[in-house]
């Protein structure tokens, strides 16, 4: 029955995952076998690599090559995160994992933390200066409460992205955009650029919410609009297009390294 199941949808997911998790309570990751690790790597590549990278180096999702994961500081939390996801982030639930699947994947993820972390290039102090002056990033981003909330908040961005992803985000922001897991809708592009044309003008912004009959967007000035779709002349979703300008020309290579270094050091501390 998958039903109903199959349901299931995310809640279902939570329920089954919890059941699966419960089955693993007696399993210690400390004694996981080599064959389980290899099996876990196979499952990881199917389920996790799209966001966390084939080698756990991160990407849209955080690097897993950390001795301590922020949402999974211990084995129990790791099981829970893999099973239940992290609401409000791009980390989805994985309801269809049996107990052995869960142990194998968790074991492999944990083993990634024993790998050497990547070296951060550039100078974070100089990078902060780039962020605040030449980049004028706070015109659209908030760090530790300072700035304007048009684009994604960056207070903890160093915990969630890796170096390559942030570099690409600075130089070519349209290449990828963050997603968020929604229990009702799945994993959505959370900063999707949309364009609405009404009899009053043309409006371009980032989608905040949408249903079959209406759409809400925030434009680059931070103003929020709500449109009835039936009253629009046209409505388009521009996948692969970001309202953020690319800084590949504006900033030098050194400045980009410095800026990325600064961003990688943003880990939630004030």
């Amino acid at each position, binding site marked *: 029955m998958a039903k109903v199941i199959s349901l299931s949808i995310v809640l279902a997911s939570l*329920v089954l995952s919890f059941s699966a998790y419960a089955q693993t309570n007696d399993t210690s990751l400390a004694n996981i076998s080599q064959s389980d690790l290899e099996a876990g790597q196979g499952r990881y590549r199917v389920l996790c690599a799209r966001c966390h990278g084939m080698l756990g180096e991160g990407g849209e999702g955080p690097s897993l090559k950390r001795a301590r994961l922020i949402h999974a500081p211990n084995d129990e939390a790791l099981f829970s995160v893999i099973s239940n996801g992290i609401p409000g982030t791009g980390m989805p639930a994985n309801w269809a994992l049996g107990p052995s699947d869960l142990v194998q994947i968790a074991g492999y993820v944990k083993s990634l933390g024993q790998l050497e972390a990547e070296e951060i290039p550039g100078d974070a102090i100089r990078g902060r200066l780039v962020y605040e002056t030449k980049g004028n990033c706070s015109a659209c981003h908030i760090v530790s409460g300072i700035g304007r909330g048009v684009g994604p908040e960056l207070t903890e961005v160093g915990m969630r992205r890796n170096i390559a992803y942030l570099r690409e985000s600075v130089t070519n922001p349209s290449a990828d955009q963050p997603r968020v897991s929604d229990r009702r809708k799945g994993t959505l592009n959370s900063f999707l650029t949309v364009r609405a044309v009404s009899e009053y003008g043309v409006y371009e912004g980032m989608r905040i919410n949408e249903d079959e009959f209406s759409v809400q967007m925030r434009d680059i000035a931070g103003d929020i609009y709500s449109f009835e779709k039936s009253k629009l002349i046209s409505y388009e979703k521009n996948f692969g297009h970001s309202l953020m300008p690319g800084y590949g020309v504006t900033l030098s290579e050194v400045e980009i390294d410095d800026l990325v270094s600064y961003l990688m050091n943003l880990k939630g501390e004030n």
Partner: protein
Amino acid sequence: MLRRVIYRHVNFCRISFCKIIVAASVSLLCVSSFADTSYEQLLADEQNGDDWLSYSGGYRSERFSPLAQISPANVADMKVMWAYQMQPTGISGAGLQESTPLVANGIMYLTESPSSVTALDARTGNLLWHWRPEISNEVLNIGFPRINRGVALLDESVYVATLDARLFALDAGTGAVRWETKVAENSVGFSLTLAPLALDGKIVVGVSGAEAGVRGYIDAYDSATGERLWRTFTVPEPGEPGSETWQGDAWQTGGGSTWLTGSFDAELNTLYWTTGNPAPDWNGDVRPGDNLFTCSVLALDPDTGEMRWYFQYTPHDTHDWDANQIPVLIDAEFEGEQRKMLALANRNAFYYLIDRESGEFLLGEPYSYQTWAEGIDDTGRPIVLPNSEPTREGNLVWPSLQGATNWFSPSYNPRTQQFFVPNRRMGAIFYKADAEYTPGAPFLGGGEQALDGDNATGAIVALDAMTGLQQWEFELLTPPWSGVMATAGGLVFASSNEGIFFALDARTGNPVWNFNSGAHIRTNPMGFAVDDKQRVAIIGGQTLFVFGVE
């Protein structure tokens, strides 16, 4: 014992269910409700727009309201008449609502997650009684949420199946327990989430649990005593017909659960019930063969449970495409011949017509994008495309495991022969893994990564029921998880994941009304009347809304 609700100061009561009583101390009381539903009323449910006496609005499972007061001409004036806020249970994981309310003689009966029953005054929404069984927090529900889809009514009782696999008969007037019986063993993964089906003196239920490797069955119980009358397994044991489609001991954990309410033809005295996936779900290597009678519809003798015929939609399923969708009974002319048919829009993306007297396959047409079958052959067997199976590395296939549709109900308008289907348009990467059976634990053999979010959409689709060809579609932002109801007023009521309850013009699919419920809608609409005024009901989140035009 006849229980009743007596309304004072009622301006108007319909003669069909009102009686005027003259008493010594009270003059002219209008008795507008009897907590009594006869089998004869159930037989006539489809023609009675005032009540909604069974899960699908009648034995034919049309989910069609014959009421026509609300139409495209006046639906813009439809407003909330009353709402009911469901009651928290404190049971972890409960709270998703998938119940279809029933209405009998002015009383509405609905279930609340995970297994509670509520009776409301259908005119005002005021609570009449609420019953909550003891359900352990440790109850197993492997592969599905802690939900319930509704009750059955017969005589003076309300019947509810519980998450921990029991069946209760409650007094319809008070909610007091008349009897209870254990249907299955929850500790190995059996559970009950469906609305039971009431026949003449019998209550029929099915089980969930294929994700735990149960062997499914359908049960009938004496409506008066709770005594079990028969049990029909959906996976045969060695030596029984169909056992040649299994090897070794795989049948013992073969799945084939029966978790959605069936349909009934009184004239043919035949019960139609659908079955779910074989177990384990995604690793078919451990269960070679067609795996009868999984992913099928069964025609059963309601008196004995004996199987008269079967039709298997998806032989040797490896994508979790249960056939647990609503079988709709249609009498119409098909290719020049008057037929008694059974229509089903399957999770596997094909729409089927079966002759329900013989089980003969008549039609199989895709109604949604799919990548697993070239088509359906003349016998009804899918022509499976190569490389459509789950693999260790993952294999992208449409539809996803949740299917092109799922348990939520379609609707059939017998006057226009339109079949309305909520359609999920989403693919998934299916992968295969080892599967080891442990009682009471997931037995899956793989999984999926759905292409969800902005990669997936949905639609409400209108099909010509006799050809399966699409007449129109209304696109949805995301794949829906809620059913539809057509009405004689020319409307189709449907819902979206975004929480919008809306009405479409049945002729064109154009939207003519909508309402934001403020929460995910994951159940079916239904309709009834109070004081001769048409009502439409839907649950959004934890709130039941009842709409009308005044």
